Structure formats: structure tokens, C-alpha cells
């Protein structure tokens, strides 16, 4: 038993990979293609990333490009910013998004604002990778999603893959983007051998180079009765629930946002325009976050699209409890999602 992984085997033209391995493959391709891409963070070298985000990169690219840092997030994220300003394309890992509190200034006041403050004259082509999410009893300081917080603060794109294909395509897009991009991977979608897995955390991935556009949601399941707008691990749960409800004749459309910034409002409106019913499933905190924004998107445009009150399945503004029954009560577990859909469709 080990929390580290062995490097992925050489790649055929398409392979079944875990999300983690797909992410690493995207990084590997970009690092091979572009010498200015480097990866910095805690335990990203010989350990290969606590959540296997860098397995094998040190061996392939060496310690000048895959760099273990001290536990000094402000310094090394800031270093990434300065390096990006001077033309490198650093990927910098914040081990858990929960740790943003020790370094948010570099992220939101510098990485995200320099381009604007310089009137467009300075570019910051940096990627900030970070692990999010709970469900394995890691407590209030190691289980948060916080994409609402990142999304609220302007100047950075925020992408959130839920599966291997998107993980690879989005990391490649993120590295190539001339803007700062925050890349939030849920530990529960990575397909780690030491964590509960949904079959959806393993999937077919093209071996070569491809991108997933940042800012386009994906309709991962079509349906006519109700729209579920969600992202990250909750996509897995929503699809499981949708399959189950289909047996009862409820056809659920599931939208995987894939990025929080930009938010694909058109996709939300199109789907709710069709189904007339909306459930937002968000593992982040309820208030002042993603779920409210998605709902408001409809009311901004036309509240008449809605044939019923919406339901928001989110963390009810509670620090994430350690004990399993409590944690499961605040997370958007399948049972809560199912209950919410049933209520909204009146089934």
C-alpha cells in the first residue's frame, strides 16, 4: 500500500487512464513541447505530488524543471508570477486549495490583477494547480472546494475537470493560455488507488496533443425533465443518480460546467430553457457561491423559464466536519441529489 504511483507506461494512440495520469500526460506533452514550462510546488519532485499530479515528471525533466519548494506558498507562488512575467510558463501547485489563506494575496492581488493594472502590457501565463474536495474525513482545513472564492475574484480563469479526457485537455489549454488559470482537481476524481473511486475517474484518453476549450460547459447527459448543473466530483454522483432516476422515467440533463471562469451561461440557459427545472449541485459552500450564481443566471435573463422553484444541493455553510456521518450530511452525496431532483420534478 502506498500513496504514490508509478509512472504511466508509454502511450499508444488512445489509452484508458485515470484522471491523475491524464493530467500528468498533458503536462508531459507540454513540457516536452515547450522548454519554458516548469512545475513548482511541495512534494512535486520525487514524491510525484501528494495527489499524483506530477508522477514521473522529475525523472523525465529533471530537478531544474520539476522543483520541490519549501513550505512558503507566498514566496513560491509569487516566484511563479515573476517568472511568468519574464516569459516562462510556470505551473505552480498549491497542495490543497484550503491553504489559499497563506498566499491569497499573491494569487488574487498579483497573479490575477497585474495584466489589468498594466493596461494589458504585462502577461502572466501561469497555471496554479490545486487539489480540492472532501468525502474522506480530512476535516475542515483539508476538504474544501472554494471555487466560489476563486471565481468571485476577477482576473483568473478557473477550470475544474471531472474526468480524464477533460483533465488532459484542460491542463494543455491552461498551460497555453496567456492568462493565469487556476486548475482545481478534486481528489475524488483523480482515480487514486488509495481513495474511493467512481468508475468515471478512469476513461479513454487520446494519446496525443489536444485541448479542451476553457469556458465551454459540456452536456454529459441529455434529458428533458430537469437540468442538473454541476462540476467536478458531483458530476459523477449526478450521472449515477440520473441513471437511477431514468428507471423511474425521469430524464435528467446533466451539465458539467468544466470551468467556473468563464461561466458558460449560454449552456445553462439553453438547458433550463428546455427542461424548465433546475437543480444545482455544488460541493462548495451554499451562500455567496457558485450555486447562487447559476440560479441568478436564469433570473437575470427570464425567471419565467423556471416551472418550479430551483434546488441547490450544496454545503449548507458548515465547516466540513471530520466524522463521516456528519461529513456525508453536508456534502452533496447521491442521496441528497436524488431527493432534490425528485422534489423539483415532483416525482
Amino acid at each position, binding site marked *: *500500500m*502506498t*500513496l*504514490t504511483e508509478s509512472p504511466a507506461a508509454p502511450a499508444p494512440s488512445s489509452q484508458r487512464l485515470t484522471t491523475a495520469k491524464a493530467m500528468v500526460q498533458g503536462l508531459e506533452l507540454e513540457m516536452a513541447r515547450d522548454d519554458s514550462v516548469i512545475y513548482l510546488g*511541495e*512534494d512535486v*519532485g*520525487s*514524491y510525484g505530488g*501528494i495527489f499524483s499530479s506530477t508522477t514521473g515528471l522529475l525523472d523525465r525533466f529533471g530537478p531544474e524543471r520539476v522543483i*520541490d*519548494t*519549501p*513550505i*512558503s*506558498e*507566498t514566496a513560491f507562488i509569487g516566484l511563479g508570477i515573476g517568472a511568468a512575467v519574464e516569459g516562462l510558463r510556470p505551473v505552480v501547485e498549491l497542495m490543497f486549495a*484550503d*491553504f489559499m*489563506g*497563506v498566499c491569497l494575496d499573491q494569487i488574487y492581488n498579483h497573479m490575477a490583477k497585474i495584466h489589468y493594472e498594466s493596461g494589458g502590457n504585462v502577461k502572466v501565463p501561469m497555471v496554479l494547480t490545486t487539489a480540492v474536495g472532501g*468525502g*474522506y*474525513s*480530512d*476535516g*475542515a*482545513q*483539508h476538504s474544501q472546494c472554494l471555487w466560489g472564492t476563486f471565481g468571485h475574484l476577477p482576473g483568473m480563469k478557473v477550470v475544474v475537470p471531472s474526468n480524464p479526457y477533460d483533465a488532459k485537455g484542460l491542463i494543455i489549454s491552461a498551460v497555453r493560455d496567456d492568462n493565469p488559470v487556476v486548475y482545481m482537481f478534486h481528489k475524488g476524481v483523480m482515480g487514486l*488507488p*488509495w*481513495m*474511493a473511486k467512481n468508475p468515471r475517474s478512469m476513461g479513454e484518453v487520446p494519446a496525443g496533443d489536444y485541448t479542451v476549450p476553457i469556458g465551454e460547459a459540456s452536456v454529459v447527459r441529455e434529458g428533458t425533465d430537469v437540468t442538473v448543473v454541476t462540476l467536478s466530483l458531483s458530476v459523477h454522483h449526478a450521472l449515477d443518480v440520473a441513471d437511477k432516476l431514468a428507471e423511474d422515467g425521469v430524464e435528467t440533463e446533466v451539465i458539467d460546467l468544466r470551468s467556473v471562469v468563464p461561466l458558460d451561461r449560454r449552456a445553462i440557459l439553453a438547458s433550463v430553457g428546455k427542461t424548465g427545472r433546475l437543480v444545482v449541485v455544488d460541493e462548495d459552500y451554499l451562500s455567496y457561491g457558485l450555486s447562487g450564481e447559476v440560479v441568478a443566471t436564469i433570473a437575470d435573463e427570464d425567471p419565467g423559464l423556471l416551472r418550479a422553484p430551483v434546488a441547490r444541493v450544496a454545503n*449548507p*455553510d*458548515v*465547516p466540513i*466536519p*471530520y*466524522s*463521516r*456521518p*456528519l*461529513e*456525508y*450530511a*453536508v456534502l452533496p452525496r447521491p442521496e441528497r441529489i436524488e431527493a432534490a431532483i425528485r422534489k423539483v420534478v415532483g416525482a
Partner: protein
Amino acid sequence: MTTQAPGRPTPPEQRPPEQPGLPHTPDDETRLGLYRTMVLIRTYEEAILREYHVDKGPGFDIGKGLIPGEMHLSAGQEPVAAGVCAHLSTGDAVTATHRPHHLAIAHGVDMNRMTAEIFGRETGLGRGRGGHMHLFDPDVHFSCSGIIAEGYPPALGQAFAFRRKGTDRIAVAVTGEGAANQGAFHESLNLAVLWNLPVVFVVEDNDWGISVPRSVSTCVPSNATRAEAYGMPAERIEDNAVEAIYDAAGRAVERARQGRGPSLLEIHTLRMWGHFEGDAQAYRVDLTDVPGRDPIPTYERTLKAAGLLDDEAVSNIKAEAATRVEEAVTFAKDSLLPDPADAGKYVFA
């Protein structure tokens, strides 16, 4: 007790005279006490290790079992906890890190409720809300945080409050050597010296911050050198030597109690196991040396040589510890899990 205004350093002439602390040599009873504490901690960590792996399979799923989540155990670091906390009363504060069990036990945190917390039970210190990185026992002013170095600043506040209330209670703030490179470390040392706060800073140098060796994280050989640059007395203690720790901590604690301000101790200790359970430690070049550096048999030999221990005493002490620990584990297992309907309780007072 000085009553100087915070925000203004006490002018040197108003400070109690700086006297090099007298050595704190443990007497026989204290030496046995140090040993007993170390054994109790190790026994505890072995029990948690055992329980942690129950029902994690097939394979290993971190979220499963009686004790889910990350688990950072302190085997090998017992001398720090025993040596430092021997000087404290339950009125003093200790703030620990993600790796807190040894300090909690040495400082007298209620072991039943601590164990119940680790098992996520309603009888736990935090009614199951906190978990093993978030043990709060206000009865003995114990707390911890899972965020690197961020336990230092609240300890300053405890020290501040203790002084403001006119007591001679002190705060002990502990972090690892990796943590000493976090900004909070610097800010805390400056503020503690500036306001002459009754704090003892402890850096547990176990050579590793997860997989990153000290040489890759820290630009200087000793954080004691750094502390001196804040005008603070500081020592580095080598070899995980519990009596040397006891001595240095005694002087630092006395200094803080007498209103003479903060000190820092960097203690070279040993992480015997993985960073957390499940860590395969492939990165770890020093692994074969580890068993030989175990501080408990070492100290056992010392005390035996001094005629304070024999095999029978050792096995009595170990049996006593086992009884105590198994009682706590049983208490935890016999306790109820929290009611999911109460998940939203205690967000606000």
C-alpha cells in the same frame, strides 16, 4: 510579571535582569516520569496505527474504517513532548500541528475524549467535528491546526491574555522544521519579542517535511540562529535527547514565566514512520537508520544503567500504558457517532 504596554518593547532597564537560567537537571522521579510519558505516547500511537488500518481494505481506502482521513503519527518524537511539557501545568497553553498526539498526551489532554475525537464520536473533544488535526481541550488550553505554522499566532494571543490577566501562565507553540519557512513563523517571532510575550517556541526538526529534506527547504543549518536574529535566546538540541530537551525547556519556560520574554528551542528529533499513514517513504534515504535511532530503547538503557529501571519496571510501565490506552480506545469505540441531523450545530455559538 511586567506590566509593560504591548506595542512598546519594555525598555531594557525595566525588564527583570537577564540571568542565564540555571540548568534543569531532572531528578530520579522526573527521569522516570519522562520515560513513562514517552512509553505512554508510543503505546498510544501504536494503538492508533493498529486501529487506523482496520477496515481500510480491500486495498487501502483512506476514507474507510473506524478512523478515516489523514493520520500523522508522532512515533520517535516523544522526547520533545515529554521534555517540554514536563514543565507545564494545565493552566499553560500548548498549540500543536497536524502531528499533535504526543504533545496532547504529554500536556494532559483527556485521553478518552481525544481518542473518541479521533474515532469521530460525539463524546470526542470536538464532538467528532474536528478530527485528529483539530484537537481542542480548553481544560488544559490545548489546541492544534492543520495549517503549517499557523498555530504560532494564536499562541501569542494566549500568552498575551495570560499576562493581561496577571498570571504567570505561558504558551508553548510547536511547529516542524518545514513550517519554519512559512511567513507566520517570522511574524510571530518578531511580535513575541517586541511585546515580550511569555511564549516558548518549539521547532521539531525531524529532517523531513513530507518528502522534502531539510536541506531543500531551509537555507540555514539551525533555526536557533534565526531566532537569535530576533534578539531571542535560542538553542538547538541534538540527538533527540530527552534530558537535554528537559533542561533547555526548563530554562525557556522559567524565562517566560518570569516575564523575561520568549525563547526558541529547535529540537533534532526523529520521524520514525511515514509522514502520514500510507506514505511508502520511497524518497527516504535514511530509513535503514531509523530503528537504531528510536529514542525509547535509548533512554531505557540510560535509566537502566543509572539503576532506575529494570526489566520488570519496564514491563510494568508498558503494561500500565497499554491499560490506559486500551481504556481510551474502548471508550471511543463504545461511544456513539454524531447524529447527521446535527451537522449544522456549533457553527455559531
